[in-house]
C-alpha cells in the first residue's frame, strides 16, 4: 500500500487537483471564459475534432523539432570551437551572450518582418531560443574532462579530432543530455512564440485565435496538448539517454 502510494503519488496529486478544479468551477460558478472546468475543456477538445488537432499539433511540433535539430547542429560545433580555441572563444562568447541576453520574444516580430511569413522565421526563432543552453552545457562538459586524460592523449600524440571524438565528447554526454532536456522544452516555447507573431496554423496560433473570440475552453485544450507534447518529448530524450548511453547515467549532475 505504502509502496503503491510512493509510486503513484504524483498521479494521485494530479487527479486531486483536477477534481478540486472541477469542483471549484461548479461550486463557485466561474464563467467559462475565466476558467473552464476540466470537463468543459474535454468537451471542447472533442468538439474541435481529431483532424484539426492533428493539423495544429503537427504544425507546432514540426517547427519545434526542426528548430531543435538546427539548434543542436549549431550548438555542438560552436561548443567544440569554444573549448578548443581560446581565440574562437573570445570571438564568439560576446555574440552568444548578446543573443542570450536579447529577449527573443521581443525580437520575434522583427525576425518575422525580416524573413517574411512562413516556416523559416518560426524555425529561426525556435533555434535562437533553444540553442544557448546546449552550447553552454556542451562546452562545460567538453572542458570537464580530467586533465590527466588530455595529457594521456597528448602524450600519445593523438589527433585533436580523436581527442574530441574518443575522450571529450563521451565525457560531455551527460551534460549534453541535461541541456537537451531544457532545450526541447524551450523549442516548444519558441514555436509557440513564433506562432503568436505570425502563423495560420499551430497550437500557439489556435490559443491566440480562440482566446480573442472567447473560446477559452479550446485554448485550454490546446494548452493541455502542448504540455503533453513537451512531456512526451522530454521523456523521449530521457529514454534515448538511458538507451544509448547507459554508462553515463551515474555521471549525470
Amino acid at each position, binding site marked *: 500500500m505504502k509502496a503503491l502510494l510512493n509510486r503513484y503519488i504524483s498521479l494521485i496529486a494530479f487527479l486531486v487537483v483536477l477534481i478540486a478544479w472541477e469542483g471549484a468551477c461548479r461550486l463557485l460558478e466561474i464563467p467559462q471564459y475565466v476558467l473552464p472546468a476540466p470537463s468543459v475543456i474535454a468537451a471542447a477538445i472533442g468538439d474541435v475534432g481529431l483532424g484539426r488537432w492533428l493539423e495544429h499539433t503537427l504544425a507546432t511540433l514540426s517547427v519545434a523539432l526542426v528548430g531543435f535539430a538546427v539548434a543542436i547542429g549549431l550548438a555542438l560545433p560552436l561548443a567544440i570551437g569554444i573549448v578548443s580555441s581560446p581565440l574562437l572563444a573570445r570571438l564568439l562568447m560576446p555574440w552568444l551572450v548578446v543573443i542570450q541576453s536579447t529577449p527573443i520574444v521581443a525580437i520575434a516580430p522583427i525576425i518575422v518582418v525580416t524573413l517574411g511569413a512562413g516556416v523559416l522565421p518560426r524555425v529561426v526563432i525556435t533555434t535562437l531560443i533553444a540553442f544557448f543552453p546546449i552550447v553552454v552545457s556542451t562546452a562545460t562538459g567538453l572542458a570537464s574532462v580530467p586533465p*590527466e*586524460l588530455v*595529457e*594521456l*592523449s597528448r602524450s600519445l600524440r593523438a589527433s585533436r579530432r580523436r581527442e574530441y571524438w574518443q575522450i571529450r565528447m563521451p565525457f560531455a554526454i551527460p551534460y549534453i543530455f541535461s541541456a537537451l532536456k531544457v532545450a526541447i522544452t524551450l523549442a516548444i516555447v519558441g514555436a509557440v512564440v513564433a506562432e503568436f507573431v505570425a502563423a495560420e496554423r499551430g497550437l500557439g496560433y489556435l490559443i491566440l485565435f480562440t482566446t480573442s473570440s472567447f473560446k477559452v475552453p479550446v485554448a485550454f485544450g490546446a494548452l493541455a496538448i502542448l504540455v503533453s507534447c513537451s512531456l512526451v518529448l522530454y521523456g523521449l530524450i530521457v529514454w534515448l539517454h538511458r538507451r544509448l548511453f547507459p554508462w*553515463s547515467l551515474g555521471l549525470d549532475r
Partner: protein
Amino acid sequence: MNPVIELAGVTQTFVSSDGTPVTALQNVDLGLRKHEFVSVIGPSGCGKSTILRLIAGLLRPSGGQVSIYGLPVTEPRDEIGMVFQKPTLLPWLSVLDNITFPMKHKYGRVDARDAERARELLEMIGLADFGHKRPHELSGGMQQRVAIARSLLHDPDILLMDEPFSALDALTRDEMSFELLRIWNERPKTVVFVTHSIQEALLLSDRIVVMSARPGRVSEIIEVPLARPRTLETLSNPLFNQLANDIRVKVFSRRPE
C-alpha cells in the same frame, strides 16, 4: 653509462592565474640510468609533477635541457608510459578496451596483437576475469591496476608515475608496491615514481630524489642500500626504519616553516 633520462640545469617558470611568474623548478640536474627505479619526494607544489611532464615531453622547459637517450625532448615520445594519481579510466569502455585504448586513440584501431597483449597484462595484474566489466564495477585498487596495465600496453622503456597509489588505502598500497616491483622485475624499465610516502619510496627505489619547494629544486639524492628483491621482510628490516627516519629528518629540515 650514458643516462637514459637527463635533466640538465632545468628551470621551469609558469605564469600563475594572477599574472605573477611562478618558478616551479630551478636549476634541476638529474640523471637516470637504464632500468633504474627512482622516486621523487617532496612537499606539495615543489614541482614533482612538472618534472614528469617535462620528461614526458608535454612541457618544454623555460631553461636548461631535458634529454632521453641523449636526444633533447621536443615532443612526447613512444617509449613512455604514464600513470596518474587517479586511474582516469574511460567509464564507457570495458576494462579490456580501456587497456587497449592508447592504440585505439593513437592509431584508430586495435590489432589482434594488442588485444592479446591486453589479455596477458590483465592476467599479470590478477584481473583476468574482469576484462569485460566496466571500471565502476572495480575497486579503486583494481582500477589503478588497470591504469598501470594501460600504461604498459606498448611495453614502454620509461614509466612515469605520479603518486599512483596515494588515493588507495594503506593495505592496498603495500600490495600494489610489491606488484609494481614484480612487474618491473619481469620487464625492467626506467621508472620515475613520484610519491609522498617515504616508506613507499624506500621499498621501491634504487635512489630517492628529495626536493624542496619555492623554488622547487633537488636538495638531495639518496642511494637506497637495501638489497633486492625487496619483500615483506624488507619492511621489518631495522635498516629500513633507520633509513626512513633519516629521510624524514632530511625532508623536514628543508621545510622553510
